[in-house]
């Protein structure tokens, strides 16, 4: 099975109104090439699940500033003021989620776990609309799993079977998102032959990955 595709071929799967998970933290570990291809294709009304909305000219910020996004589920939008502007102008819905809760929601979504209990957010606006549970003498919020139609990842080294190594702090949300979407596409900085990546260094097993595109810098 050949997972390596032309970038224009893979973005055909991304359609208006879809929910996308996009890896990265302040654009470090975000597949810029895939984002550029989405922009070029003209997809709109996207729901984006990601740690943040990047910078104005980098990462997810490019999708926001070009008005391709109708909803964002993220922990932080402060480094891209355009997200806040669109939110205040009611052009964009933003659900702010504590970062650890967001990570765990995605992990649960990919691991077949129906939800989890966390103390994070108890007594704050985060608890609004959520079920609270008391276990022993501690109060928790019930947080539910998140999944997406498509996950867009960035891998530092990817073999042709889709096994991924993420270098340094590019890993962040990428391995979690790899498990929690119906279709998983990785933008690779370097593509290598099967066998070249030491199995001990594989952070996302290739079984999670549907398509590989090259060209990430």
């Amino acid at each position, binding site marked *: 099975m050949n997972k390596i595709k032309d970038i224009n071929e893979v973005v055909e799967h991304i359609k208006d109104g879809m929910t996308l998970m996009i890896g990265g933290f302040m654009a470090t570990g975000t597949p810029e090439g895939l984002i550029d291809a989405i922009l070029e294709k003209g997809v709109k009304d996207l729901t984006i699940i990601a740690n943040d909305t990047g910078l104005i000219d980098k990462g997810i910020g490019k999708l926001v500033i070009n008005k391709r996004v109708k909803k964002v589920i993220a922990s932080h939008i402060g480094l891209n003021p355009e997200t806040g502007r669109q939110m205040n102008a009611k052009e964009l819905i933003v659900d702010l989620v504590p970062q650890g*809760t967001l990570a765990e929601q995605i992990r649960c979504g990919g691991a077949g776990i129906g939800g989890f209990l966390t103390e994070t957010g108890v007594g704050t606006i985060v608890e609004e609309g959520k079920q609270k549970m008391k276990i022993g003498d501690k109060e928790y919020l019930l947080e539910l799993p998140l999944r997406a139609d498509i996950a867009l990842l960035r891998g530092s080294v990817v073999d042709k079977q889709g096994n991924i190594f993420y270098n340094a702090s590019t890993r962040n949300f990428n391995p979690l998102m790899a498990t929690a979407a119906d279709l998983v596409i990785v933008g690779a900085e370097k593509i290598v032959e099967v066998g070249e990546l030491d199995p001990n260094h594989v952070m996302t097993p290739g079984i999670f990955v549907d398509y590989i595109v090259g060209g990430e810098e």
Partner: protein
Amino acid sequence: MDSKNAKEMIARRIAKELKDGDVVNLGIGLPTMVANYIPEDISVTLQSENGFVGLGTAPKDGEVDKDIVNAGGQPVTINQGAAFFDSAVSFGIIRGGHVDATVLGALEVDQQGNLANFMVPGKMVPGMGGAMDLVSGAKKVIIAMLHTAKGAPKILKKCQLPLTAVGKVNLIVTELGVMEVTPNGLVLQEIAPGVDLEEILRGTEADLIISDNLKVIQD
């Protein structure tokens, strides 16, 4: 005292709270300065919530590695013995009580140990990032901030802004003094050299209990 000296003083005092072997998460801005004053005879491991422990200093020219950034997205270095991980592990470390201390800034903090530091409705809504998890999960929560916002008290009877967490703050360090949140209320434990009690009381809305054992902050 100008703001730069005030912040250095706060950072230096907080560094003394850290113990050998501690895992510590420092927030962006003033809290980050604490790293500059960690005593040389102790070893502290800094966590960066975007996915590693062993955070080092800012890179020199030519040392920048685009793949190594801190939780503010700025290039940083790592120390020998560092380890990278994904965001689920990172927040497992935080929520699981494996972080001994976190140092964060505040917009408001109150005498019950409540903290507001992530939004001003209608004005500043950057999002909480990892702050809510950090404040909930760290064993010790230390607030590093200037005592007032241009004269307006930030240490209150009750926070007015949306809360980051309820009752989780342990210690507040400002350029005027060191205050501890206790079951009896907020206790002024230390006062900065040359500062009189009146000045602290004027800049504090919270009911401040003066410790019987009030000390001057040692430089």
